[in-house]
């Protein structure tokens, strides 16, 4: 019979599948120390004159902020290095030039002495201007070098009063320095204009914006942001793609960041051995106002400029990031003549079709995040379909028909043999 081998084959396959299942590597990760530095948070508090307004739960904005700060200082995790910077705390005068320089470090970023920090906060008095841009620039300098996460939490009740320096652009420039800084913003009883400005600052660095109406909201939110800073995150490695494959940097598995200007091409190279699979994904972030239709294209091409595979994405409307990815399994080599180079160099080209909104600066480029994974190529399959197993009524019908025909033939043969035996 044609199906005779099934039980034996089935059992063999079953055993093989079971052992394969047992031997399947678990994705559990061994905790390897990365030597990550302590996370740093700089709280930047607006102490401008408007903070006297009494509209948060019946108390002044300043009092609410102080109370919230006390709660935050109590709840700050041990490992977080916290600093406090003020803006508009010292200069009460009318001179814009002086007022816009008015930002000071109240408590340096470092191991936290809660009592000392609280005493410093208690001395604050709503005074001057709202120099958000200059304060952010200074705050970026407050951090120590290190690969831990860095976060600025900006709390303000009014928009920047120090035009023409646009705090949004300041934020973008800080982010472009590549120190991995995120700015989160909180608006105290904000109007639409302040919301727009603070949200623009946040989006420029991948941070968040929250509007605050009550004192407990303020404490909760700042606490959450400080906690978030304490969480370990993968720090990307800065790299710089080239304009052509020949000059491109060679990357290994990992997470990388780069900057790509509007309409620019970025090239990277990855070495892939036969039998390995290249996985690459790229995200281009819209950290400023862009026109509502956009796209990202990631191509894998050979050194001879033949396209292997591409990933493309397009989108429309409000977005933070547009991303795509590709897989390229390089087949095992059959001939082992050894005169060809073992690894193939795959060139990755990233292009974007974002276009800047009107009046938006095009430099620095858009933040680009690139993930490269080079893993073993696809296995000989362990999936049941590959054992030749089928399903469905057509399969049953075919098998029954084949079996029936085989039976018929067998019967005829046997009848014929019987006839031969009888006549002889």
């Amino acid at each position, binding site marked *: 019979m044609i199906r005779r081998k099934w039980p034996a084959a089935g059992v063999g396959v079953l055993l093989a599948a079971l052992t394969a299942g047992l031997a399947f590597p678990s994705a559990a990760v061994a905790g390897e120390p990365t030597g990550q530095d302590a996370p740093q948070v700089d709280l930047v508090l607006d102490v401008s004159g408007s903070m006297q307004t009494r509209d948060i739960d019946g108390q002044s904005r300043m009092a609410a902020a102080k109370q919230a700060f006390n709660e935050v200082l109590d709840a700050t995790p041990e490992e977080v290095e916290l600093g406090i910077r003020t803006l508009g705390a010292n200069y009460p005068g009318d001179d814009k030039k002086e007022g816009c320089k008015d930002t000071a470090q109240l408590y340096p970023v470092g191991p936290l002495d809660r009592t000392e920090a609280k005493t410093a906060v208690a001395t604050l008095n709503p005074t001057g201007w709202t120099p958000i841009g200059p304060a952010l620039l200074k705050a970026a300098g407050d951090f120590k070098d290190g690969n831990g996460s860095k976060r600025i939490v900006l709390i303000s009740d009014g928009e920047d009063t120090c035009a023409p320096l646009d705090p949004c652009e300041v934020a973008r420039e800080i982010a472009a320095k590549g120190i991995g800084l995120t700015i989160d913003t909180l608006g105290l009883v904000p109007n639409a204009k302040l919301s727009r400005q603070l949200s623009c600052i946040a989006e420029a660095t991948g941070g968040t914006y929250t509007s605050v109406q009550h004192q407990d909201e303020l404490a909760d939110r700042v606490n959450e942001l400080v906690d978030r800073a304490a969480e370990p995150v993968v720090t990307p490695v800065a790299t710089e793609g080239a304009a052509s494959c020949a000059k491109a940097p060679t990357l290994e598995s990992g997470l990388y960041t780069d900057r790509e200007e509007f309409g620019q091409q970025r090239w990277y190279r990855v070495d892939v051995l036969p039998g390995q699979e290249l996985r690459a994904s790229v995200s281009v972030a819209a950290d400023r106002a862009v026109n509502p239709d956009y796209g990202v294209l990631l191509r894998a091409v050979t050194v001879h400029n033949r396209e292997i595979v591409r990933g493309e994405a397009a989108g429309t409307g409000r977005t933070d990031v547009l991303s795509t990815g590709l897989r390229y399994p390089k087949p095992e080599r059959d001939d082992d003549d050894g005169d060809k180079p073992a690894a193939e160099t795959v060139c990755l080209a990233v292009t974007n079709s974002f276009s800047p909104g009107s009046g938006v600066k095009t430099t620095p480029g858009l933040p680009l995040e690139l993930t490269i994974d080079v893993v073993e190529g696809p296995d000989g399959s362990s999936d049941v379909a590959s054992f030749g197993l089928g399903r469905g009524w057509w399969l049953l019908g075919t*098998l029954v028909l084949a079996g029936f025909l085989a039976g018929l033939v*067998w019967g005829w043969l046997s009848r014929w043999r019987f006839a031969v035996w009888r006549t002889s």
Partner: protein
Amino acid sequence: MRITRLLGAALLTFGLSAAAAAPAAADSTPSPGASSEDGAGPTRAGTSFRTATEFEQGQTATARASVGDYLYWSFPAGTGQRPTVEASVKLPETHAAETWRIDVYDGLRRRQACQYGAQTRTAAADAASVELKCVLRTVRAWSEPWANDPLPGTYYVRLTAVNLTAADLGQSVDIEVRAGSKEMGGAAAVDGSLSEPLVPGIALQNAAADQDGDGDGNDSPTAVLADLEPEDGWTSGWWSSRWVWTAMGGALAALAGVAGYRLTRGTGRPSRVPPGA
């Protein structure tokens, strides 16, 4: 003749026992959606692919966030599952009309299409909440590199307000996100498999695991892009309804063979031959 009968009987028994084993095997691997229905997930959301908060299928991830935030979660999905992502957003008391959207990306950050479900929904002014849903395609074990089919690995969920007024920016919202999946069984089997699931950063994870050897290591939290695995593993296992189909087919073929044999062979001996001949 006798051999054929024996073989037929054997095949039939195998087919029946396999068929009987099917429900038992199905029972032993409960669907992740049902197993931990009341499981509480993380209470926070990430703000980028890199910082996406991980949760398991069947869990409910919650977060308090602001309108305008881009919120990211990730969950693992294995072969043969058809994931469904649902989100509900509790909006503030007063607000203008807002459009919310849920996007799902695979481990390569490729956007995955939703088969059904309201992926985008506009909440009228002062509406209390928005419900969003996305039913993905079935996760296959393998696909051509040029295809965009869902593969086993990490899936990212991005939730955001795509259309809103400046006055609504920054308002607090409460968000719940759930992921579950339906097992699609043997119908979704394909001929091939990936060596590693599409988990971002898996090459580095493997390298670290190799270096560390035994893997118990130390307790210092190491940042990884994605760490979770579906509770039944990435592959659907050896069991598939295809075993039953094929075995039943074999058994029926054997019976048909016997029938065909009897039809042509007749009763065994020609009736004209006397019994003693």
